[in-house]
């Protein structure tokens, strides 16, 4: 019984917590209660992780309850290795974010915790849904809490950032909604078919759609995900949202929300519409590379620490997208692990920048200098997170980027190693801007008197960061622990794509 | 024998005149009179159809329409009186607290 409903428990535990919060008045209790529920959720996901059997094919922990009969919509959950890793990441980062913002949120504490827990429900739901309708509901429902988190607790230009974030995401997702409806309708026109949004059924139905229409479907889905990732020309909401969001908001935004875009590509765009995916593959790869280079260059010239980290996300996600569209087992494995890495390291960087801001009330790089002497702990953690992000061997980033580049190098689908070669330069640029930033902030002498008085990290902050660092090192040293979980799912996906490719070639002949 | 089309044609012309009146006039009362023209043209069409098909339903409907017209004019004129008390005008160009 416990295991058959485990996913539901995981999704709705935070919701129960959120509702309970409304009944409490005392702020300390509110904070403790929300951390408690986030922790329970995390423990449940760990249980999920341990009971997940990587050897079994297909989706596990499946729950199926019919919900709306006339449209054949069901409450249909299930996970594979890819979603498993992201679910654990989500619950982990939510817990971290809540603990980290213990003292940084001063107004409307109850609402803040309420919205963070609500956000967690949405994020977890997205990764668990096997029904497009259900998926869409979680996908959109998650927008609202994030919107409030940015808009109420953000910095100066928060309203602008929140509205921009909302509208951008909405444009993409509503077109996706039409595509979802069209898919359901298409299923009903087949002989003996009914209207359905069941993903498992659609996996076999969708590839039979005539290529002309399939292309539109692919574009509608991919646009929505590309905005979320964000892929290069659609990224303009990201720096605003990340910079203006409060610390916890930035962590979850970078750590989890962006992954929903890449997850969507893996879960929907590729397997549902393989033939159209092949058509757009070069374009997507080029956009990914432009994103890598562009993100790096723009990061270099940023004066604001938070903006710098934000733009570095564009570059990192470029790697992930490149790995996905290279369609080899190595590259997609790399992308999956890189999603987790980015969540951990960028999350950590946002936390560190947030903590620095809390102590010094500025984020301008030029306002700092020589902090390594004043705040040794902070400098150390910052260094580890930064190096993880750069991709130093032995830390997590290296594993992901290496796999992606290897895969892209030998990918049949990309057809040429040129993409991989250009992308490699991105790794170097990342080292340049991150190290330069680190040098300006933490090395040299302390030339501003305000910086002398900055307090170092307290125990709570150290605990939070240490928890992240454990995983940063773990993935760096022994990635197979995590890679082994997602491998079968990735292999199956690549198989599907290869088969589709062969089929398409056969049809051509 | 007068063809049915003649009656319907006449009613369509009257209807058009009514529509043009509503769209061009500025005086609430005369606009309302144009509406009455429209209703009457519809009545004429109904009676003609009814007579030529031998079905009394059309006449019954006209009977109801006349009752409705009476009700409408009572309410409409009351509204005009109420407005007149406040604004001393029935010219809808001068009714401009709200944009038209």
């Amino acid at each position: 019984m416990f295991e058959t409903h485990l996913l539901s428990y995981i999704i709705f535990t935070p919701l129960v917590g959120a509702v309970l919060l409304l009944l409490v008045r005392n702020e300390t209790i509110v904070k403790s209660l929300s951390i408690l529920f986030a922790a329970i959720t995390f423990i449940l996901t760990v249980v999920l992780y341990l009971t997940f059997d990587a050897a079994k094919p297909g989706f596990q922990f499946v729950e199926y309850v019919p919900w709306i009969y006339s449209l054949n919509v069901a409450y249909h959950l299930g996970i594979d290795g890819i979603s498993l890793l992201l679910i654990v990441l989500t619950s982990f980062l939510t817990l971290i974010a809540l603990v980290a913002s213990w003292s940084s949120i001063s107004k409307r504490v109850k609402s803040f915790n309420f919205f963070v827990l609500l956000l967690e429900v949405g994020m977890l739901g997205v990764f668990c849904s096997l029904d497009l309708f259900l998926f869409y509901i979680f996908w959109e429902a998650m927008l609202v809490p994030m919107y409030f988190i940015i808009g109420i607790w953000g910095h100066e230009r928060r309203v602008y950032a929140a509205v921009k974030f909302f509208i951008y995401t909405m444009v993409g997702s509503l077109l996706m909604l039409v595509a979802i409806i069209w898919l359901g309708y298409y299923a009903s026109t087949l002989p003996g078919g009914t209207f359905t949004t069941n993903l498992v059924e659609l996996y076999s139905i969708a590839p039979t759609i005539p290529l002309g229409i399939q292309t539109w479907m692919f574009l509608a889905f991919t646009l929505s995900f590309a905005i979320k990732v964000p892929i290069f020309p659609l990224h303009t909401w990201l720096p605003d949202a990340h910079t203006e969001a409060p610390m916890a908001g930035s962590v979850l935004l970078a750590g989890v929300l962006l992954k929903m875009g890449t997850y969507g590509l893996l879960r929907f765009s590729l397997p549902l519409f393989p033939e159209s995916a092949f058509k757009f593959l070069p374009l997507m790869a080029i956009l990914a590379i432009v994103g890598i280079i562009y993100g790096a260059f723009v990061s270099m010239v940023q004066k604001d620490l938070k903006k710098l980290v934000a733009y570095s996300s564009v570059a990192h996600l470029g790697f992930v997208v490149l790995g996905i569209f290279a369609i080899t087992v190595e590259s997609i494995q790399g992308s999956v692990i890189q999603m987790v890495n980015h969540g951990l390291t960028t999350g950590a960087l946002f936390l560190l920048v947030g903590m620095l801001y809390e102590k010094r009330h500025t984020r301008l790089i030029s306002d700092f200098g020589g902090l390594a002497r004043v705040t040794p702990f902070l400098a150390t953690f910052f260094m580890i997170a930064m190096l993880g992000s750069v991709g130093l061997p032995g830390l997590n980033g290296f594993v992901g980027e290496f796999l992606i580049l290897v895969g892209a190098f030998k990918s049949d689908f990309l057809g040429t190693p040129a993409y991989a070669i250009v992308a490699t330069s991105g790794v170097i640029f990342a080292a340049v801007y991150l190290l330069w930033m680190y040098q300006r902030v933490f090395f040299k002498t302390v030339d501003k008197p305000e910086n002398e008085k900055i307090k170092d990290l307290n125990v709570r902050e150290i605990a939070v960061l240490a928890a992240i660092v454990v995983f940063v090192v773990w993935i760096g040293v022994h990635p197979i622990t995590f890679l082994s979980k997602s491998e079968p799912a990735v292999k199956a996906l690549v198989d599907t794509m290869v088969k589709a490719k062969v089929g398409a070639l056969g049809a051509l002949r | 024998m007068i063809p049915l089309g003649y009656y319907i044609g006449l009613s369509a012309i009257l209807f058009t005149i009514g529509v043009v009146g509503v769209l061009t006039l500025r005086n609430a009362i005369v606009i309302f009179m144009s509406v009455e023209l429209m209703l009457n043209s519809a009545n004429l069409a109904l009676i003609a159809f009814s007579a030529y098909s031998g079905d009394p339903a059309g006449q019954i409907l006209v009977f109801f329409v006349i009752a409705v017209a009476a009700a409408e004019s009572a309410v409409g004129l009351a509204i005009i009186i109420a407005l007149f008390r406040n604004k001393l005008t029935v010219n809808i160009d001068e009714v401009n607290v709200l944009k038209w």
Partner: protein
Amino acid sequence: MSFNYNDMIAVSPILFLSAYSLLLLIVDASLKRPANICYWLTLVGLVVSGFLTVFTYNASGNAFNGMVFTGRFPAFFEIVFVLSAALSVLLSKPYLEKERINFGEYYTLLLFATLGMMIMASARDLMVLFLGLELMSISLYVLAGFVRRDAKSNEASLKYFLLGAFATGFLLYGIALVYGASGTTNLSVILERFSVTQNDPLLWIGAALILVGLSFKISAVPFHMWVPDVYEGSPTTISGFMSTGSKAAAFAALVLVFSYSVHPSWQLQLVIAYLAAFTMVIGNLIALVQTNIKRMLAYSSIAHAGYALVGIAAANSLGRTGVLYYMLAYTFMQIGAFGVVSVLENKEGKYLQISDYEGLANKHPVIAALMALFMFSLAGLPPLAGFFGKYYLFASAVSAQMTWLAVVGVLASVVSVYFYLNVVVSMYFKELPEGSTSVAISKLGATALIIAAAAVIELGLTPGYVVALTERLF
């Protein structure tokens, strides 16, 4: 005799409400200070007729010589009207007292209007449809001008009246032509003769004129110009009632004419589709620039008529279900939004600008949360009622091979998100202005709002039950 007791039972909600409103009229006339008693009596009456409706739900058939439908279709809409009226009435007492227009006639006329709506939704004959529409309209003309000392209210009433009468002209002429083509005004007989008459241009011209007449009532572009002025000038509770009840009634009529009786040819389908597209786009675009919240809601209500028209244009069973579901969902969210305005506004016109809502979340957190909920539902965010309605309507468009209409619809919704969010931004993200005082929130008003909010959530989470109610309608 041309009717029997079964007939009477089958249309008992209508008969009951007629008798009850006459009773109310007598009470109003014979007491010295009747307003409060009328208020409670009206609520009781509406609740009772709601219950009667539930009992008639499965009595499908017709009554009074085929003049009216009985059973599922009218019952569904009757419930919508009763809810719309009951919520408006619940909100009315505090509002009327605030505006000092607490007269018994208000409640009587409101019941008459509800009665008219019920008759429209039960009509199996164009004659009955016409009379129901007129009963509703005439009562609403007066209610729109209920604040007699206020020039805005007078003008709202006059504009509503002139445009309404104009629309009546079109409707009646359309009925006349359909009668000419089919030789009957009975919708079922029109349907029976449809195979013969469907090539008669007279029928289609008549149908088009009926469409024009009803388009005024649902406020479809380009027949919408009266809406913002009338909603702004009318008492706020009446604006809420008009924008939900009378719109739902007009949609009931549209379903009866176009989905039950005269199945639109593809040309007419296309015309309705264009009407829907223009209504969605223009309604939402103009709503963007509104600063007055009542005008904003008026344009939003125009846009929502466009969404529901998608279901009529699709002319299939999904579309029919979509329209019915959407009318119920829309009733709750729109009355909720107007309800919040009515609870907050005062006689001096405060809380009528969107900017007056700045920092509301600090002052009245519950009211702000409810308003935010209604805004999100109107914007169509899942898992709220508005989202599911749109999903159904767009699905009907896609399955009628009109995917372009669904795309226009979602793009229009994106636009709408902006102005709905604008209210949320004001309430939550802006600071409270200096020296603002809080408003006394009446308990009755808050009750109505909470009921509406609960329904918005509930309809979104378990839409299946309502959808099941919309099957096998006739």
